């Protein structure tokens, strides 16, 4: 049976918790946590850990060379490097607005890659 030591990040306390598989409803037993949130976090980290991914894509037609992007919701931890490879294939062009979808449903995760800032193009004088 699997067993793992994890530092809980549900709050700044950072409890050192231990999660092991058992025959309960959730399938896991969490020890060392000081609150309910720690239990929830521990189970999630063992069963399906997810992360929000933030990175950049190449940007054309602007005073900056990179556009910050993010997943619009968390993706499975194991998908991070595959998603990075997909994201590296695309380019964006200014002007662009926050939340613009750049990749729809990346690698069938149901998650979109969206722009995380607005940026004007080179013709705009507003910025300088």
């Amino acid at each position, binding site marked *: 049976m699997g067993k793992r030591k994890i*530092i809980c*990040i549900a709050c700044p306390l950072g409890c050192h918790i231990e999660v092991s598989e058992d025959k309960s409803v959730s399938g896991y037993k969490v020890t060392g946590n000081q609150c309910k949130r720690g239990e929830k976090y521990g189970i999630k980290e063992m069963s399906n850990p997810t992360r929000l991914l933030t*990175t*950049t894509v190449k940007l054309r037609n602007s005073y900056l*060379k990179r556009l910050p992007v*993010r997943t619009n919701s968390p993706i499975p931890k194991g998908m991070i490097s595959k998603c990075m490879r997909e994201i590296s294939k695309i380019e964006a062009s200014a002007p662009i607005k*926050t939340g613009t979808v750049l990749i729809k449903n990346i690698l069938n995760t149901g998650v979109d890659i969206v722009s*995380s*800032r607005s940026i004007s193009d080179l013709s705009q004088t507003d*910025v300088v």
Partner: protein
Amino acid sequence: MQIEYDVVVIGAGPAGLAAAIEVKRNGVDSVLIVDRDRELGGILQQCIHNGFGLHLFKEELTGPEYAERFINELKELQIEYKLETMVIELTKDKVITMVNSKDGLLTVKAKAIVLAMGCRERTRGALNIPGTRPSGIYTAGTAQRFVNMEGYMVGKRVVILGSGDIGLIMARRLTLEGAEVLAVVELLPYSSGLTRNIVQCLEDFEIPLFLSHTITKIQGKYRLEGVWVSKVDDKRHPIEGTEVYIDCDTLLLSVGLIPENELSKGADIEIDTATNGPIVSESMETSTDGVFACGNVVHVHDLADYVTLEARRAGKSAAKYIKKLLQHKKDNIIISPGDGVRYIVPHHVNVDNLEDTLELFLRVNRAYMEKNLIVKLDDTILAVINKKRLVPGEVENIRIKSHMIRDREASFMTIEVQSEGV
């Protein structure tokens, strides 16, 4: 030519933006915000990771998204701003000299000023690491700007000195971009970064963290070739014989931030040696009448949300000052750090200016578990606050109801970590 404004805000990062907005919201229309960068938002624009706004918006935003909310508000309120404009001098009588390539040299007279210049990274020069001076050594924030905005990758095999938040964030960022982060080296026996960053930036990517270690030598003629890492003893001195060579082409330094107060010093503003920032009142007013300060120029915060809250207080106070509603008196209550506390901001309080709560930020000098923070007014204990965990890397935010202070005629307030066996 001399231009006049009621309030001038210096710096358009999270502190400056929130302060300028608050000035205008409180009924003062003549406000100008100045920044040396080409766009508003300050360092938030290079902090593309999430985690901003959890306190303020109950949402996890990235740095640029957090900035954009304030930039939009600033524009909606039609607050005037000047970009690519560098303030070069500030005087006690609130005359600001600035330069840019459009206006040339510009003198602005303000009735009130809000200092929001933020902070600067400590560099290799501040650490005196022996060795050669090759290329490939960056402060973590510079590397962050190169990678996230300018589109330059800084290297392939990376060592990071210091486990401050920017260093941890960059360890993950460079790994995602294909570099190999070989080690994060921390002098202290604990990380100065947030726990969530240790987990999500290092553990997720199996990046080793060496606590109680430091870099003792830098090697390489043109480009960095490697660094020597040694274990340190409890006095933080390298232990002979423990050195290990790490072959790398890039070294990032994440070894602390220093509030940027050259302008403040020019205006004779008193600086606290513990924070390296101006000494401020409950209204965030400095030792110079009508000059306010907020954000990392006052003390280094670990969350942008706290910067915003502090900046709102400074902005509101500046507006009050313009409307002649801010009270001044000589015998403010002096707030000073007691045992175990490194600093407290603000440094003194005039109860006449308090609304319903007095908001304090403090940092302890070492890690404590299960300890009480004791707030004393003169010799009376005002409050005992139990803390499960107190670490130097995380700022504590303490709020005290104003009536508790107002009802007593006190002249000193102290906060200390309760000692053993009390």
